[in-house]
């Protein structure tokens, strides 16, 4: 009896039934599968829609209106976009901030990524105490940006800061500078602080890349008489191309979204007189106002945000595509 019952549920029974039952079973199976997929997809989709797509659309739509502070005014079409790109007072600030972002990107690429690559190579060869170094290099990455910014602000203080005191100690007192107070050194100083904070990340990615290189290849190169430098530039560098793709793309996104560190170290105005002003600061200042002098202007602020998003999305895609092709070519 029980066996019969079980048999009643078995697939063979179903297949032996007329065609209708067969499809019924399949469709039930398919429905269950669909439900399962939906169960997996719907919650993250809902989260994405609510917290990513919806705010983006709201930002996009509000960029087409004139705003008095937080109060929405009339529809102005593309006026806000044309203002921030070509307008009287906005455009000069936009392009200045954009130039600073470009500088930050290239400077960080040279300083942060190169240092990360070399540090990875250093650790990869497992020198004495490499386990300690591996952790030490990554340590700053886990510190909060607020803390790092504050710390470096203290280090760079012209009168009591560590940097100037060190220079004095090693007899280079003539090089003492008000680092954050002059336009020639302020942005480079911020770049250095950022590199100190984040160098552990490219180092880690490159180290992982290097550890993926088969040992035989390196040994073969060594047998062929490769010098240390040749090994690094001709063998290791091309083989860690996927790591470069990752670090460079993330660096690009980070450099153009740069906000926390300049905000803490240079203030919302990009002090001194705008020489550290980047798009992130400029957007924030425009949209939310600056208690010490600026006004809230959601329309222009959102236009800036939308342009930044589009620029970063398009260029990051292009960079990734190009670097992927380069990975294969190498």
């Amino acid at each position: 009896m029980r066996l019969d019952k079980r048999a009643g549920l078995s697939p063979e029974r179903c297949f032996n039934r007329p065609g209708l039952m067969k499809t019924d079973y399949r469709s039930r199976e398919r429905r269950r599968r669909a439900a399962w997929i939906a169960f997996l997809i719907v919650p993250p989709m809902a989260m994405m829609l609510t917290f990513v797509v919806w705010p983006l659309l709201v930002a996009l739509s509000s960029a087409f209106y004139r705003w008095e502070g937080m109060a929405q005014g009339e529809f102005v079409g593309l006026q806000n976009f044309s203002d921030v790109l070509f307008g009287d007072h906005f455009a000069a600030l936009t392009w200045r901030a954009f130039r600073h972002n470009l500088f930050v990107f290239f400077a960080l690429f040279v300083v942060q990524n190169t240092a990360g690559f070399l540090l990875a190579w250093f650790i990869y060869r497992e020198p004495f105490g490499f386990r300690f170094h591996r952790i030490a290099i990554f340590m700053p990455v886990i510190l909060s940006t607020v803390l790092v910014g504050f710390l470096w602000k203290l280090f760079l203080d012209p009168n009591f800061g560590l940097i100037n005191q060190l220079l004095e100690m090693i007899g280079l007192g003539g090089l003492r500078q008000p680092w954050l107070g002059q336009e020639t050194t302020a942005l480079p100083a911020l770049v250095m602080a950022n590199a100190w904070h984040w160098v552990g990340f490219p180092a880690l990615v490159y180290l992982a890349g290097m550890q993926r290189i088969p040992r035989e290849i390196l040994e073969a190169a060594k047998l062929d008489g490769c010098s240390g430098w040749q090994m690094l530039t001709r063998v290791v560098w091309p083989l860690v191309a996927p790591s470069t793709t990752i670090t460079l793309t993330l660096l690009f996104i980070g450099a153009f979204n740069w906000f926390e560190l300049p905000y803490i170290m240079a203030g919302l105005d990009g002090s001194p007189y705008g020489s550290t002003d980047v798009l992130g600061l400029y957007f924030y200042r425009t949209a939310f106002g600056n208690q010490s002098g600026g006004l809230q202007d959601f329309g222009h602020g959102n236009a800036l945000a939308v342009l930044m998003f589009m620029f970063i999305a398009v260029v990051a895609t292009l960079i990734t595509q190009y670097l992927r092709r380069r990975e294969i070519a190498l």
Partner: protein
Amino acid sequence: MLAGVLTRSILRRALGKLALTAFAAATVLAAPVQAEDLTLWSWRQEDKAAYAKFIEAFRKKHPDINVKFEAFEAANYPTVLSTALAGGTGPDIVQVRAYGTLGVGKPDYLVPLDKTMVPEFENFPASAVAAETMRSDGKLYAVPFASQTMLIIYNKDLFEKAGVTPPATWDELVAVSKTLKEKGITPFGNGTATSWQNETIVGALLSSQIGKQFEQDVLAGKADFTDPRFVGALAKLNELKEYFAPNFSGVDYAASQQFFAAGRAAMFAGGSFELANFLRQNPKLKLGMFASPVAKAGDERLVALYYDGGYAINAASKKKDAALKFLRFLGTPEFGTAFSNDLQNISPIKGVKFENPLLKEVAALNEQAMSYIMLVNFRYQEPTGSVLLQSGVQKMLAGKATPAEVGAEVTKGIGTYYAPFKK
């Protein structure tokens, strides 16, 4: 039997009616005792305890009205408030900013006030009332609450040690600074690395040289910021910078406060709001203050003054009458005195009695004041006069721009929206 049932039923009905009547009577009697609840929103969380006292004082006269003080983080306040106002909700009474749009965006959100509704406006100086008038419609919306003054604070002990006295003229200020420097004392704690500090430095040090007349001429469209009165004052400031904190271009706001509070610098060009702060950091400090020195003896000596904000009534409030009663209380000298003494702030209400001698001194200096020119007049559209002046002066003091260039840059920036400057 039947009669008994009837009697009981009549009795029950009568009792029921009696109970109903008693209940109704109780409700009627209780109604006036039940207090009306108002809410007040503020960005000053640190003032909560003081407001509890003010509200208690108010309730002694109006036991039928209760006020609930709710404070938000200052940085988020504009967002929280404008979102609530735009949605037709929010508190009954709103703490608003001064000047321009009073920080609420549109006039429709607030109830316009006048002297018939709030006779206490008579207790305020005209500049305070003007500060709470919205630029877009010229109507008055709020009862002002505090003023801030830009002046020069000095360390009495260090002055005594160096054998100098507070200067009256610019030349005397330079001489005093020179003597202090020679005696190894940094004359000014000020640094310029924090942008907005450059505007306070101008207000504190140069107001007497810029002068009220210049401000009036600018507002009348007869002068702009390339005027010799303004550019000349900036040039004077440029000569004084060698007496600022060492490496001043890299010294930010916090570090410059430290310089002065630690007793390493003799003077600080800043706001009256620094006084309490300096004393908190170093209670041993003996502080004095003076207004910006004049170009030549006999000129009018001025401090620069602005108002922090005021109290307004939400247009969406359902308890406007009660709110108005509270607003009138906020305009009385009684409240002004409590406000000044409990919060160590200057209430602009006439007849306030200051317990703190330093506040009394500030109030006395306020008798001769011009407005803190950019904040008061040119902070309603981008680029604001404040932003332009801050970065211009920062650049000038770094040696990267001349006073004339700063004047021209400020005029050009404001000229993008201020008709008299458009040429």
